[in-house]
């Protein structure tokens, strides 16, 4: 019995430590980092066109093709925000959940990722004074909701959230490939 208590105590202590340690200070968050420029290169393409409105509407169309709903648009500053909701269930999580269930002798059923909202914000803007060159920058991120867990016959209510920026280059390449096709122009990186 006491061994169980020690184990439980150490788990609580570890989670406490984790909650306290990894805080990034706000002043660091307003500084460009080493990854800023590589992220920028991945998320940005330049198009040789004067027609910013066309670029923006083509972007909206591509996002629609990818299953997104446009949530907000401001033409004057070339801004679009879109989102789609999908299932977030992953095979691997169910396997590790099974092993935890076996190891805890049927007492702990870990919550798994159930649902996710994938969002994109897109900004198009001219980058030279004659406005013959336009830059499109898109940033993808997602919010994941966890749930469906059970600890010793007690249901763990869903609702825990997890957010992350999506930094998979393939995602961005896919979007820009479609956008290039839609506007009949080759996008290039600077």
């Amino acid at each position, binding site marked *: 019995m006491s061994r169980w208590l020690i184990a439980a105590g150490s788990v609580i202590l570890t989670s406490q430590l984790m909650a306290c340690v990894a*805080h990034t200070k*706000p002043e660091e968050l307003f*500084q460009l980092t080493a990854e800023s420029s590589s992220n920028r290169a991945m998320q940005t393409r330049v198009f040789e066109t004067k027609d910013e409105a066309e670029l923006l509407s083509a972007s909206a169309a591509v996002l629609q093709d990818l299953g997104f709903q446009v949530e907000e648009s401001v033409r*004057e500053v070339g801004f679009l925000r879109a989102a789609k909701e999908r299932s977030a269930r992953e095979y691997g999580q169910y396997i590790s959940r099974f092993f935890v269930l076996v190891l805890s002798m049927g007492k702990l059923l870990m919550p798994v990722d159930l649902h996710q909202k994938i*969002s994109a914000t897109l*900004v198009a803007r001219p980058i030279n004074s004659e406005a013959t060159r336009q830059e499109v920058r898109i*940033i993808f991120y997602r919010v994941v909701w966890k749930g469906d867990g059970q600890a010793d016959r007690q249901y763990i209510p869903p609702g825990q959230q997890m957010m992350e*920026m999506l930094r998979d280059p393939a995602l961005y390449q896919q979007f820009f490939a479609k956008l290039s096709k839609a506007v009949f122009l080759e996008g290039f990186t600077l």
Partner: protein
Amino acid sequence: MGSAIAMLQGCVPPQPGPELLAPTEAQMKIRSVQTRTFDVKDRQVAMRAVIAALQDLGFIIERANDALGLVSAARFAEPNYYDVLGVTVTVRPQAEGRMMIRANAIYNNKPIEDPKVYQNFFATLERSLFIAKD
């Protein structure tokens, strides 16, 4: 044991005070820190530079309003996802081709009063405006 208590105290969330809606003295003091004037004629150019600077800093642009010169954005304090940093920037034209830009930043819904934060933001914005001019 003592360190465990100190650690627990470090984790207690900030308590809301009665001055929640009233402008605090510290807020009045940092107004000058939050505001800077730039030599830009066109407000849209300034707004686009603000948006580009925020994107460079990894922010998610949530809302933009051209008529009011308003941009709001947020980001999580990566690598963790439970601390949220929000910022609202207003761009207002002043006399003779000068643009007043004001940024309000909040960290987990508490106003940031550290001048360094705003210095860092305006440094990035200045760079972004400089690129836009060329």
